[in-house]
């Protein structure tokens, strides 16, 4: 193992922080906006959509796509920063 243990640990910690941050958004959008607070958000109307309904049937999915690509990009940067990328 050429990579020293400390560096690997630091990389792993940074990864975990990133994942937790993004999963927080994932949770807030899917379970917060779309389920728990749906009635509250439904009082806001955007076009023909009630906002809570929009999050549940449209918005959440757009956010999921963005989150997945954002993670791939950010973790790629971390890989290079810590010198653990594949090349």
């Amino acid at each position: 193992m050429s990579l020293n243990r400390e560096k690997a640990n630091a990389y792993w910690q940074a990864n975990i922080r990133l994942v937790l941050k993004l999963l927080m958004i994932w949770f807030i959008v899917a379970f917060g906006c779309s389920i728990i607070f749906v009635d509250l958000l439904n009082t806001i109307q955007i076009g023909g959509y009630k906002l809570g309904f929009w999050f549940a049937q449209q918005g959440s999915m757009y956010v999921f796509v963005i989150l997945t690509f954002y993670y791939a990009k950010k973790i790629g940067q971390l890989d290079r920063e810590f010198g653990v990328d594949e090349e």
Partner: protein
Amino acid sequence: MELQTLTFIIVGITFAIYIGIAIWARAGTTSEFYVAGGGIHPVANGMATAADWMSAASFISMAGLIAFYGYGGSVFLMGWTGGYVLLAMLLAPYLRKFGKFTVPEFIGDRYYSKTARVVAVICLIVASVTYVIGQMKGIGVAFSRFLEVDYNTGLMSGMLIVFIYAVLGGMKGITYTQIAQYCILIFAYTVPAIFISLNLTGNPIPQLGLGSTMIGTETFLLDRLDQVVTELGFAEYTTQARLSTLNMFVYTMSLMIGTAGLPHVIIRFFTVPKVSDARKSAGWALVFIAILYTTAPAVAAMARLNLMETIQPANGQNLSYEERPSWFKNWEKTGLLKFEDKNNDGLIQYTSDKATNEMVKVDRDIMVLANPEIAKLPNWVIALVAAGGLAAALSTAAGLLLAISSSISHDLLKGVIKPDISEKGELLAGRISMAGAIVLAGYLGFNPPDFAAGTVALAFGLAASSIFPALMMGIFNKRMNKEGAIAGMIAGLSITLLYVFQHKGIMFVASTSFLGDMSPNWFFGIEPNAFGAIGAIVNFAVATVVSKVTAEPPEHVQHLVDDIRVPGESGSARHLTPDHPPA
């Protein structure tokens, strides 16, 4: 041209395309296929994953369920897409780094135990067979309509086709075939949606049409729908929750973690060239899935509106049974749509009141297939939808059957019971188990536990409660040992199965359910389809406790975990050999 003839032609052409591509790809790239193995671009892999993923549940069933559950149907939309976020961040890159071919293989190595591997095989088989039952329901519905026979005969013809398709086999593994399947599937789904959205709102983009006003009026489509359904006593479309907030929460969670725990999806990320590609592939798969999934709510709402306004126009002029449209008659032949003239007035009353409602059966799974007919779209569009539905159902059923047969022949037989089995013997065992799975799933499909998407949701619950926690702890908890993982998987799967069986019947045979499929008996009002998340919590808890009181995993396993956490230095982690092509 006659609709049935047209359907046969279009379905025939699409099948010819899949087989043609398979033959072409085979001839050109056999050696490359094995050696490079993973030389597939993330975008292509994402598209193929999406085709693999979207089954009869997504294509045929989901929008129909949303049409009747309204807002409550969102659990399927979020559950089956949100899981990819988990997959991309928590599992796919690490499993790719590990570089084996099946999920039980990872579990067996990570938990240094053949027992763990066998338990994983059992979990995988239980979840996959349940999943195939759901596909069979969808296939049965599609075939019964287009052969104009009853559901059971349709299901039997479907079983035969799946058998031939899956045993022809090789086709399945070829990414290009799946890309073709995706294109046909998405075209078949979006074309009628665009037509209907244009007809109703004048906006060609269904995602926007759903939020627009009805053509020629100032009324929003969703407001109109809410008004139409509430007038007949049904719950308001846009706010109708699925049972309770807690149930929706648990249901969504269950589908999400089930998505990340289903073996036939995870396998796809084993075949990309690099760890970073596994992350991107998950993103691309999600994009291609989201195209269908964001269209589905529009299909659902518009189909419901068209159905209600056809059968029961809001102004009180009910449709006369004698004058019912041809789609109505055709679906009556399948037994999936039933009318009973309770007050003998010759008119159709469709209300939420059980005593006076005369539409005694409207199977939710017919909605997507009937939708273009109800909206009076041209015949070629209707035929196209049939071809798309079959593509979705067949590709996923074949993928699952391969996962089942490889877990029996590769993991169970070769890995554990009889390591010296010949390659021929392994192949034969695979074929036999595949045939067995089709017969079992088909048999259970005659009386499916739920609509196609509901049945598939049960499968997700089973995967969520058994496989996902074991994989996740295998990566994120270095201290997790074999005792903990095995106890966790057994506890999670058993409690979920027990809960499902007591309400849905043993092996889903309804007459054997000892507590009945009734909400008063449900634990905190959580329906069986949603119970996987609770099973997963039990799994995590049992595993943690057991691992605390037993010995920690050996050093080489802890090194293995360190190794899969870091993407680089993966040169040796690739174990592709000609004996073990990607599944």
